[in-house]
């Protein structure tokens, strides 16, 4: 009964977002949506047909990267992901994700968290598979070193410092012409140091960049594409998230290399 409910919810949440996955994988995120539509597929070292075939192959199966093996509900509980803030700090829009409150402390529903986290990790894996640029954002000074080291090890990018206003919206003047904006922004904490929503959430939404974010019970989940309700204050929880994201991205990249090698071997053995 519980399993049936979960799969139904899974399907309900999943399908509207597939087109987003296709659009983001098909090109760089340029400054304007118009440019994105007319942009060519990434000119990596293989032809357009191969890329499209790989894309179709990866999108055919529901769990192409077998991410359901990486974590389970018990791991989340042990890492204290279910602990939210006090009842007074609760954000109204987080009420659907909360199980209840105990001794004034909000408890996050881990069954929903598991679903949301699976979706988020799946999406991240697909973006990494297509060679997308992933930017990790967190303004918690406690974990800035951890997040930066994790991004470095994955081969992706991090921003755990003061966010200058026009980094996404004014990119061509800040960085130079022809800069490639991130294809996915992952928030390990959606709030900044003064407990207001991070500017990057709004900016990424303005620039049509999909976001994955860990939302605590005092955060606003509305602008985030793939919210993951969970604790963002405990070191144990943060280490768990970093480990999971690193594993997904590495898996996706390894799978990509593997498939390319197979294609390469297949095409070289073709005429024989």
């Amino acid at each position, binding site marked *: 009964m519980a399993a049936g409910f979960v799969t139904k919810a899974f399907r309900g949440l999943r399908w509207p977002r597939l087109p987003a996955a296709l659009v983001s994988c098909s090109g760089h995120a340029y400054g304007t949506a118009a440019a994105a539509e007319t942009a060519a597929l990434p000119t990596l070292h293989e032809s357009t047909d191969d890329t499209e075939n790989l894309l179709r192959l990866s999108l055919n199966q529901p769990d192409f990267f077998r991410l359901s093996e990486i974590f389970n509900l018990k791991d989340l509980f042990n890492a204290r992901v279910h602990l939210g803030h006090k009842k007074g700090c609760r954000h109204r829009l987080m009420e659907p994700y909360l199980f209840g409150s105990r001794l004034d402390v909000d408890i996050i529903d881990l069954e929903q968290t598991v679903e949301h986290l699976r979706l988020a990790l799946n999406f991240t894996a697909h973006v990494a598979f297509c060679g997308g640029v992933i930017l990790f954002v967190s303004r918690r000074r406690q974990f800035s*070193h951890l997040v*930066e080291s994790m*991004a470095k090890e994955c081969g992706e*990018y991090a921003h755990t410092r003061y966010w*200058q206003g026009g980094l996404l919206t004014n990119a*061509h003047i*800040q960085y*130079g*012409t*022809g800069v490639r904006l991130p294809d996915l922004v992952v928030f390990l904490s959606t709030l900044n140091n003064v407990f207001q929503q991070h500017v990057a959430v709004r900016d990424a939404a303005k620039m049509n960049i999909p976001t994955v974010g860990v939302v605590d019970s005092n955060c606003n989940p509305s602008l985030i594409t793939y919210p993951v309700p969970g604790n963002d204050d405990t070191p144990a929880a943060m280490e768990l998230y970093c480990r999971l994201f690193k594993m997904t991205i590495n898996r996706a990249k390894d799978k990509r290399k593997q498939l390319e090698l197979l294609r390469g071997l297949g095409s070289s053995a073709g005429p024989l």
Partner: protein
Amino acid sequence: NMAASRAAVVGSLFWKCGSCSTGTFLICTNVNTQLLSRQICATPAMRRKNLAAAGPQKFTEEFIKKQVEEFNIGKRHLANMMDEDPQTFTQEDIDRSISYLFPSGLFDKRARPVMKHPDQVFPRQTAVQWGEDGRPFHYLFYTGKQSYYSLMHVSMAVLHSLAGSRWLLKEELEESLVENISDHDFARFIQLIERLVALPYGAAEEEFVLGYRRQLEVQSSKQEIQPLQYDQKGVAYSTADGRRKMSTASVTLKDSGSGKFTINGMDQLHYFPVLQDREQLLFPLHFARMLGRFDVDSSVTGGGRSAQAGALRLAISRALLSFLPEGQVEDMRQAGLLTPDPRVKERKKPGQEGARKKFTWKKR
């Protein structure tokens, strides 16, 4: 005759003016040609608009390398033309030769023909920071100040490795050096090594620095734990005292009990009718997860209701230490169970009603 031949060869030489740049540069990144290549514009108005929009030019590594090769080839040709040794042809010689071959009457020195190494012509900062596929090279590119923040990251790593340790003491240094050191000398050494750590990229000297750091001892190891005592029947018990405000309590914990709790001969439920006081008594046992295990026999004098409960709590925590495994002692200390509460009643001062309350202030 010679001048004529030199002039003929000049046409094939590749030289650049100092300030103006010829308009046919092509920045060769395959993906971005549509954005970065200069268009050959029809009208002056269009040309002006394009220059503004493009911003400062960016040059790829290959372009700069090609320029360097061409410069070197040109330098050799120039040396041959001037009948000098190409190996020992310096920049001064180049300047001299160019001013001879292309005499210019222009007043502005920057407008005269000049042949310089590409590193001096193309400013170094405008190197393109992303590869062919658009992915930036540095993992902190999107922060805007990648070098500065990567420096901060490295410094933080050094800080983490130094956390939980302290500088070695003067006595320890004297031991390791087998020499007498004055206080002044030791202070200078500590100052120097602190400066080393504070320098950028002090992480490189990590091994050297860590040799002079000692681990901080865990505070709870300074706690004296009484060994367990056994009575005639072989049952373990421990005693401890505790104080809070004006009350003193003395507690005996007996093992393999049923959770009985006696205070001054009375049951705890009768002695403390208020829930808050009973919670204070049970807190240490609940924290150590040993609620039903002990029989508690205690006596308490002095103070009020709350003070007696606090004194009993401290006494129970101290008595419990003998029964606990190693790691839990530090947990108890961090939970605040082992710290005696230093708050006592503040004395009344002359000229005031009480400790803080002042007499009514009258303006006149």
